[in-house]
């Protein structure tokens, strides 16, 4: 029966499309490069530090030469007084874009191609630079794209049905057979819906998708990626680590000595803030005043009198109660020294572009899967040797439970 054949073919198409979308993974060079070089300031569809870049290829169509220059050396272009560049600079809150002189034309083309095509809906602005290989099922984006695909396929199906129906009607009319009535269509539809194969396929499909979704969601329970609490002092890492380039371990000295990286004690702040009671924001009195108020909170903690320039005698010190952002569960042991000294890992690998964060948030997921992925894939820098052994942490026993759980 032709109807049945059609139904089979259609269902088959839907399933194949569905599953192939699940496994589809094209890692365009541009995307990789974007993640590496641009994503700390830019996203495609959202302004982070720099503007959203999705519309860039269209906006500068025909003016690629200027765009390439800008990408390679934005500060230079602004300094040279290029009108377009200065305008762009001022439009974006005078946030200067870094220079990327080493990018080749091909690479920039790749980048632009990526900006044009994008990577599907829902890009989390705070999304991590994921570790080298991610679990495809763990990325929720895939489910949304899948859903879109199903919608499109459903439309096509509907269209086909309409066309087929029109054709059939036409043929029937030509052959002078009785035309299909609406009741016939209903009967046919009902037939299709009652078809055991269709029901089974649908149930299978819903079950598989549902389970996959459930598992992916369940795995995020207890993770607080993006957690960005308001801290007692509006301390800016962007200012200290980014602008002033203070080394991370100047304050977080524990990272190389201890399991905990330490939140610096207030006396460390005082090393500089004895002298710096406020930050001048020329022409912005409100911000200047705010900076003074924030720094005064350190003085309140340690008992420093900035006017007399001395510690207040007999002052009862008040500790600063920071809110802890990066939490590992009690049953997981994490040691900073192990990772920073022996592993030689940069702070940013786990904490993200901290030098650009006005307010610190939890950048990575800090879940066990995330730990394990890195232990599986990350090549270990072998201490005391120049040539790497091409070993992963896993090769050295890094997946043993009792490395972290005891």
């Amino acid at each position: 029966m032709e109807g049945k054949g059609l139904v089979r073919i259609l269902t088959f198409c839907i399933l194949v499309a569905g599953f192939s979308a699940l496994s589809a993974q094209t890692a365009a060079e541009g995307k990789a490069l974007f993640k590496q070089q641009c994503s700390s300031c830019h996203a495609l569809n959202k302004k982070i530090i720099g503007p959203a870049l999705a519309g860039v290829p269209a906006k500068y169509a025909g003016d690629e030469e200027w765009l390439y220059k800008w990408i390679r050396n934005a500060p230079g272009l602004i300094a040279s007084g290029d009108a377009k560049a200065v305008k762009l600079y001022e439009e974006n809150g005078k946030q200067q874009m870094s220079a990327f002189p080493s990018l080749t034309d091909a690479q920039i083309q790749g980048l632009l191609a990526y900006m044009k095509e994008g990577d599907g809906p829902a890009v989390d602005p705070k999304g991590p630079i994921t570790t080298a290989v991610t679990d495809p099922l763990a990325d929720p984006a895939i489910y949304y794209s899948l859903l879109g695909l199903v919608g499109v396929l459903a439309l096509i199906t509907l269209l086909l049905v309409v066309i087929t129906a029109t054709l059939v009607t036409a043929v029937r009319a030509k052959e002078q057979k009785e035309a299909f009535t609406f009741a016939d269509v209903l009967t046919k539809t009902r037939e299709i819906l009652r078809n055991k194969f269709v029901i089974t396929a649908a149930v299978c499909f819903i079950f598989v998708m549902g389970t996959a979704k459930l598992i992916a969601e369940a795995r995020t329970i207890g993770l607080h990626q993006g957690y960005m609490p308001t801290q007692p002092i509006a301390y800016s890492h962007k200012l200290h680590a980014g602008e002033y380039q203070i080394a991370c371990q100047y304050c977080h000295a524990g990272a190389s000595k201890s399991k905990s990286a330490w939140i610096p004690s207030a006396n460390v702040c005082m090393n500089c803030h004895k002298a710096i009671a406020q930050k001048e924001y020329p022409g912005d009195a409100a911000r200047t005043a705010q900076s003074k108020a924030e720094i005064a909170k350190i003085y309140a903690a340690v008992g420093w009198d900035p006017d007399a320039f001395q510690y207040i005698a007999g002052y009862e010190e008040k500790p600063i109660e920071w809110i802890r952002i990066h939490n590992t569960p009690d049953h997981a042991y994490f040691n900073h020294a192990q990772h920073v000294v022996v592993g030689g890992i940069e702070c940013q690998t786990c904490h993200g572009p901290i030098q650009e964060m006005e307010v610190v948030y939890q950048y990575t997921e800090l879940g066990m899967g995330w730990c394990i992925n890195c232990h599986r894939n990350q090549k270990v820098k072998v201490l005391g040797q120049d040539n790497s052994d091409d070993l992963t942490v896993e090769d050295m026993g890094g997946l043993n439970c009792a490395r972290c759980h005891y």
Partner: protein
Amino acid sequence: MSKPRYWRGLEELEQTPEFIARAKNEFPSDIPMDQVLKEVAEEDSGLQANRRDFLKVLGFGLSAAALAACAEGPVKKAIPYVNKPQDIIPGVANWYASTAPTGTPVLVRTREGRPIKLEGNPDSRIAKGGLSAIGHASLLNLYETERHQSASKKSNPLDWDTVDGEIRAKLDQVKAAGSAVRVVSGSILSPTTRQIITEFLAQFADGKHISYDAVSFSAVARAHEIVFGKRVVPQYHFDKAMSIVSFSADFLGTWISPIEYAADYVVNRDPEKPMSRHLQFESLLTTTGAKADLRFPVNPSQQGVALLNLYNKIAAKVGKGAFPGVPEFNTAMNGLDLAATELFEQRGKSLLICGTNDVAAQVIVASINAMLGNYGATLDAENPSYYYQGNDEAFAQFADELSAGKVGAVIFLDANPVYETALGEKVKDGLTKTTLSVSTAVRPDETSALCEYVCPDHHYLESWGDAQQTAVHFSLIQPTIYPLFKTRQAQDSLLKWSGSTQKYYDYLKNWWATAMMPKQTQYTSFQTFWDESLRKGVMELPYTAAASAATIADTALLEYADRLKQGFAAEQADTFDLVLFEKVGIRDGKFANNPWLQELPDPVTKVSWDNYVTIPYQYAAEKGLKDGSVVEVKAGGASYFLPVVIQPGQAKNTLGIALGYGRTAAGKVIVRGNGSKVNGRQVGGGNVYPLAVVANGAASFTVAGATISATGDTYTIAQIQTFNTLYDPAKGVAFGLDFDRTEKIIEETTTGLISSGEFGKKVKEREDHKKHLVSLWDSHFEDPETSRQIHWKMAIDLNKCTGCGACVVACQSENNIPVVGKDEIARHRDMYWMRIDRYYSGSPENPDVVFQPMMCQHCDNAPCETVCPVLATLHSNEGLNQMVYPRCVGTRYCANNCPYKVRRFNWFNYWNDKDLFSDFYSHSEMGRLVLNPDVTVRFRGVMEKCSFCVQRLQEGKLRAKVNANSTFAKPEDGSIKTACQQSCPTGAIVFGDFNDPDSEVSKLFRKDRSYVVIEEVKTLPNVQYMTLVRNRNAEETEAKLEERHATQTYSKA
């Protein structure tokens, strides 16, 4: 079916049906689920619960858990220091040297300013890194909420200035009246404190320092005064002794300085070198008796005559005159002849000691040692020990004065004579007659409750101080935490009351500058000397050499010989000699309000939490008494209702009751250890100090003429030994093999069997047998020679283990192991990660004893790993059997499948359960400060077990990598120690990397003595034991084996 050669307790020896049934069950008590549900339902609705209700509860629980998991986590604060002290590295432990109240120099591990673990100071000759159970547990007392928290007058808190003013005024009043001022204390090891007391008393016309010891060895000092003219307790050098004969001295458990002696004792117990010979004559079975090569049960009333016989036999060999008229006495196997011969043959290298606090006996012992030329060699009276300086007579005199109202002011320096002396009533009575009574007790006790003023001292971990263990050994005490309460150091109080403005810290420094600085040449600046001494914690001076010559004439000894003869009775009928003994955990009871110590099972009886009376096996068999039968013991005019513990090896007509129980005004934990009501009668507990009356110049801890009568009641005693059974007779049958399972648990031999080649044959048999073992698994491990990995293994030397339990408490402290209380232990739910199994073999009249520390064996073919449905227990590539708490769902399959019975299940949320476990310190913020932050606190419903102290391994590996700047650096052999290994005074536990062929542990593993427990199940444990070797010749071995054979027919199966 043949009887097991080794038995854990009498129930196993007799193969009672209960025992056989229990041996098959890992969890002997059923989970009373029906009952629990019924109770819950009845409480809630008055209805009976059924399966539906259960499912409802379960369903609700599940959905609640799911919902809870979705909720947002709580906001956590991270509060840094305002001013971080320079030496504190948050997250990294700091170590400070100090001295425990037992006098053992210790290292204190602190984290972020709170002490969390004690370890013996390895630089100290007294400690050699070891620390006793009581030393470890003294840490917990710091965080005790029941401590005195401020100065008080008649229990009303007062500020220090007021108290000082009032005390000063009263002291002036006493001074004006010219009446007596007494400072009463235990033995004070601190030279500065002694000096401060002297200075304080100097301002009064009649000021005296009275020093006494609850458990007194003053007879030793008195005897040396008689024999040598010096009132000293000599230093004993067991490491120099090749022949040791001990009369009732439990020198490995409780006698004078057990940690020091245990470490010295094992020096000559290595079977590869000439082994020392140790004979023990004793009435109760002690850990020391258990380690002896030959042990002879001797009734306390026969001991004097036994000593005289020994004297005569040795005198004959030396060529001296014998005591006349000594009744003939000898033990089985002619023990006294053996002792005499060996002591004489090894003269100058032999040592005779006696644990009885009887001047006459100690005089004879000292003269025998002098006769053998042991002074200056194995005993040193020139460089005496400073432990047990108490004077029983002086104290008795003080008690008389006090009750006669002749004392104007009395200050108790953390002394508690109302409880811990026989004269408690007198002191209690006399205290009402003084003008001023002050106690500096750290925590409430019976004496401070009666004193007008309580001026609480700091805990020692909050204090400054020093200690002098012997004439040549000094150590310092330094604070490791800011005082938790408004307490003040007792020395500061005394200085203040002396009118001095100096702080004790300055006083101490000054004293070290003037008294100690000139005694060394290494440092020229005092500051450097002081800093170094504080860092190291100990200072040792050179010994003064010179042998003591006896000043007593042989004829003068006759008086003492006569005294010893008096108590002798060849055979007694119905009366008993009651021996008051110290338990290794509770000791004199001063630290009894400590749950770690109360729960620690006694090494020999394996009873936790309770006092009891030990009775000889024969008597129990005659009268039909069982473990737990309640009896009334009458002695010295007092009566005690106590449960019975049948003690194999105890001498006939002897009873034993432990000291340190029955405290009244001392805390919640003590109440738990004081027994409970049975048929309306209080059973258990019992303060036996009133029986230890001073006789002939010393407090006597044996009471003659005790009687015992059964009441017919039964009392549950919590005994750890009777479960965790590694033996299952049914399995043996099922395997269709003719093997004796217990024989595969314990391996022991004798020097006689080694020299005749018997042992070698056995080893070869074992090796041959091994070849036929097959395994389902491939090896987990790479070739040791080329491996970059570590393979952790542990070797435990049964020859060195004295069963003292120090490792058990050290493990508890290191690994946050909860205290579960008596009821749970009685349900066989102890939580110890390591236990010490005690096995008897031979006749129950005088069995051989073996102690075997047992913890997770970290099997390479682990049976627990294969049965876990959720992979919560897995093998690491370093040979660890890992336990992953967050994965565990509590099926307990692993524990069921573990042939070693070392897995522990969290039946409750021990650290937070406010209803059941609230008395064990763990429920206050304070009590939890003791937790090790590097070890997870386990929740209800998960399994746990020994982890080989993996937190220490991880820390040590990281340290090695950072220090060597190499990713593949392995920690140096011996640089990582597990908590049990570290605390073992005898070094019985060796741990290390088996892949390193030069490591201590891989050398031990290659020895013939090394064996695996229950090898035939082929679990390939990473823990191996070293065969116990007793120094017995072939004949003695034979004789003991015959006894053993007799036992097998003795108990009718």
